[in-house]
């Protein structure tokens, strides 16, 4: 190649593999702290799933539904506070008015759920009289779990069991159980769970297998703090990080795929790109998943310890998504769209809903729909709106789809999701479609390189939730100068977790490098 052949220095303190949210945060933090940083990204855009795309008059949000908004809560720590105050990034946020509208078509449920815990409990009580007591206890418990996570964050380095047990007994006593087991124990009526559970799809594990701890933290953070989105799609977050990295003197290379992670003597020594360039580093922060790294990227393969391969073989990979992005030529008023976030399903039995996503042609799946204009009225021209319909799918369900079948298969899923949305909400949207794109696990694999197009990381069952992951971190460090960030790392998936994991990865990397020096 001639032209833009990169003739960079080839020695770095820290190489960050992948400019997804975790990688962006890691490169930002490492460069801020004076490290010589190289961020390598295969795509021509930063962000991974946190990006945007333009079709005609519309700029679509590919993945973000909402981020919990901590700005209103003084003592809260969380991702929005990190982005604004700690990282000081220039991102404009807009607020989401209500938590969600849940429509369960087989159960005749159609309820708008508000943010704010007392209002949320009131809404459940109105629909399920007599539920106030147990639901209040449940929400209190969720708040307590969230508090413990804050405590864990603050004591990341000096954590020990005794202290945790003494001060945070409820966290410990519920920590081994699924969200369903805890709800059973607190005698939450089934009808109340129908209203409380819709966020399960943000984690993608059915409630009878989902770690209660992570569920409680998620539910509490949304309901008690409210939620925000960036004004210019999540590409604004990613672009703000890139600006920050460049201002800090970090280097970013787009269109640069890493094909090999080089090792010697149990250490990562550098990377080799598809163009054959080699860059060496003292430490690697990988936004690529452990699965990709240990199964295919590390070279020579014999350097991958058996334990690392056991690790990635035993963990359950999360699900992927199908998203139908619609640019509509009528405003939300005209269409009758009043809500930002809709959760639509025949019922809220999450184990059954999860089963459905193992095949492509099942009826009665759950969808999460977002009308961006309700929170962000200027996101598209006057008299238009942006609607995105999202459904989880296991990537395996797509495994047999050939290139020739692909466009028809996704078209028929889109047709069903549009129909389901119209029937549940009583709106007519299909005659207003001006732009339509349909993303599938293939699409996510294409743009992010994620293993099997998976959007979520490993499923957070109780044994593979945040706390077991954090407590096992020492045992499961297979290369001393390698840290992971992103949705497959210890904080589990989601925007906030992915971003903050980048900071943790840098903390740990610097600890390691300082110990070396």
């Amino acid at each position: 190649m001639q032209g833009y052949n990169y003739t960079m220095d080839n020695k770095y303190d820290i190489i960050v593999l992948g400019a997804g949210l975790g990688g962006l945060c890691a490169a930002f933090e490492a460069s801020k702290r004076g490290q010589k940083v190289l961020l390598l990204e295969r795509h021509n855009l930063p962000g991974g799933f946190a990006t945007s795309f333009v079709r005609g008059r519309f700029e679509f949000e590919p993945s973000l539904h909402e981020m919990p908004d901590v700005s209103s809560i003084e003592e809260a720590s969380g991702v929005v506070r990190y982005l604004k105050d700690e990282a000081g990034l220039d991102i404009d946020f807009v607020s989401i008015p209500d938590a969600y509208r849940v429509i369960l078509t087989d159960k005749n449920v159609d309820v708008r759920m508000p943010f704010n815990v007392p209002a949320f409990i009131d809404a459940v009580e109105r629909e399920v009289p007599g539920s106030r007591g147990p639901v209040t206890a449940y929400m209190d418990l969720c708040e307590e779990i969230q508090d413990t996570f804050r405590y864990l964050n603050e004591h990341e380095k000096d954590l020990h069991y005794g202290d945790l047990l003494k001060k945070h007994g409820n966290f410990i006593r519920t920590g081994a159980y699924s969200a369903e087991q805890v709800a059973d124990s607190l005698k939450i009526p089934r009808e109340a769970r129908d209203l409380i559970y819709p966020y399960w799809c943000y984690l993608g594990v059915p409630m009878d297998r989902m770690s209660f701890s992570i569920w409680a933290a998620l539910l509490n953070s949304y309901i008690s703090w409210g939620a925000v989105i960036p004004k210019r799609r999540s590409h604004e977050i990613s672009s703000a990080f890139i600006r920050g990295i460049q201002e800090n003197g970090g280097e970013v290379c787009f269109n640069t795929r890493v094909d090999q992670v080089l090792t010697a003597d149990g250490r990562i020594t550098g990377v080799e790109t598809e163009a054959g360039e080699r860059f060496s580093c003292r430490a690697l922060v990988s936004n690529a998943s452990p699965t990709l790294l240990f199964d295919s990227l590390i070279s020579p393969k014999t350097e991958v310890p058996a334990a690392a391969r056991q690790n990635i073989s035993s963990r359950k990979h999360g699900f992927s998504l199908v998203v139908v992005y619609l640019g509509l030529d009528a405003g939300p008023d005209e269409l009758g769209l009043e809500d930002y976030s809709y959760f639509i399903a025949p019922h809220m039995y999450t184990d059954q809903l999860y089963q459905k996503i193992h095949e492509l042609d099942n009826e009665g799946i759950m969808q999460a729909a977002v009308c961006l204009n309700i929170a962000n009225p200027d996101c598209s021209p006057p008299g238009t709106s942006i609607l995105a319909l999202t459904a989880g799918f296991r990537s395996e369900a797509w495994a047999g789809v050939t290139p020739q079948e692909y466009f028809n298969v996704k078209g028929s899923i889109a047709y069903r999701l549009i129909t389901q949305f119209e029937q549940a909400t009583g709106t007519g949207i299909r005659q207003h479609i001006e732009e339509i794109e349909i993303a599938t696990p293939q699409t996510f694999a294409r743009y992010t390189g994620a293993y099997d197009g998976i959007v979520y990381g490993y499923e957070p069952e109780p044994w593979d939730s945040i706390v077991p992951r954090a407590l096992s971190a020492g045992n499961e460090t297979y290369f001393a100068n390698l840290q992971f960030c992103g949705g497959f790392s210890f904080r589990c998936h989601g925007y906030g977790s992915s971003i903050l994991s980048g900071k943790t990865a840098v903390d740990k990397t610097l600890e390691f490098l300082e110990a070396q020096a």
Partner: protein
Amino acid sequence: MKVTIKGPLRDTIAFVRTLKKRNRVFKKAILKSLSPAPMNLLAAALHPREQRMRITAVKQDTPSTRTYRLEPEDEKDSLAFFRAGQYITIEETVEGTPVSRPFSISSTPDEAAQNNFYEVTIKTGEDGFFAPWSQREWQVGTRLTCSEPSGTFYYEPLRDTRHVVCLAGGSGITPFRSILRDSLHHYPDVRFTLLYGVTGPNELIFGNELSALQESYPDRFSLVRVFSEETEQDRVHSGAGQQNETGFITAELIRKYIPKRGGKSGAKTNEEPALPSVFICGPPAMYDFVSCELEAFSLPPRRLREENYGHFAADPAQVGRDNKPMGWVITVKKDHGSRHAGQKKVLTADPSETVLTALERAGLNPPAFCRSGECGWCRSRLVSGEIYVPEENDGRRQADLKFGWFHPCSSYPRSDLVIEVPRNPIGRRR
């Protein structure tokens, strides 16, 4: 409040045991190779980073037009499947200058899947640089590197009407050759009317093929040839479903071929909207003319699809404003970092050319697909300086506007510029 699930002690023990369970699960693991995963393989099949091809046949369609058949250089490779109407970008080096051009695939997706070829059809006269060069240089055996198929100019059953009006001008027929053959075969409930404008019968590309297609689908495909010069049109077949007209594709002409609502039976078909989806592809002069004519129909934007690969009309009053006689200086920093300013490349840009063209003319190798401002593949950082972007070709993201990123392919320099351009991952020259 103290919460217990199965008893305080049991709960605590259970918590501690989550770690034991974790270790137990790992120990029991059956080691297997996980990669490559099916979705990564499907992505690679549908969207290869590049496709290396060779020309296996050349057909002279008209005196000024040739169709090239492209097959994988390595017979074991499969060409990427696509949606009829999409284009590929061919990367070439013309007289020492690396350039890329998007061309609609004029063959069908089925032909790619079953016979492993694409066809592209190139007419001289509309591109004064690349097309004549390709006609001189390309022959059977020539090797080419091209992109994956891309673009959004395709029939989409979830959006478009069951009656589609196609307006083609000159070589703008190329995507329609693919769309018509593919859709007539795969969408039995969709009808097409093609109004195909050329100067005269000699310039009809795929004339015989289109006639034959009309005869195969007499109820669902109407073919209207529109000759701008009134000569010899008698010798072009016309009959049921195939008409010849003289002049241009005017509102009056379009109206003549848009059937009335409700169809012959008079039965009300609520499904069918009053106005059909209209697809347009042709040279810039045709767009300008047809766009004005279509105003009479007040088509909502959802009923209008355009392919304009690289042809767009910048406002002459904007381009070259404050024209400096020597042109603007563009300083290209070679990477996104700030540490390598020493390796910058400086070039001079003619104010009437896009930044992308200036980069290519200077022998650089920037990424580029659509050349219309739409796809964003050339997205680069504008460190300093002022650019002009024609409004209809401004596909920039809102955050890119905020943080100073732009699309060189649809941007004209208005001052000296300092920019950063990402590398082109497609290996052009070998």
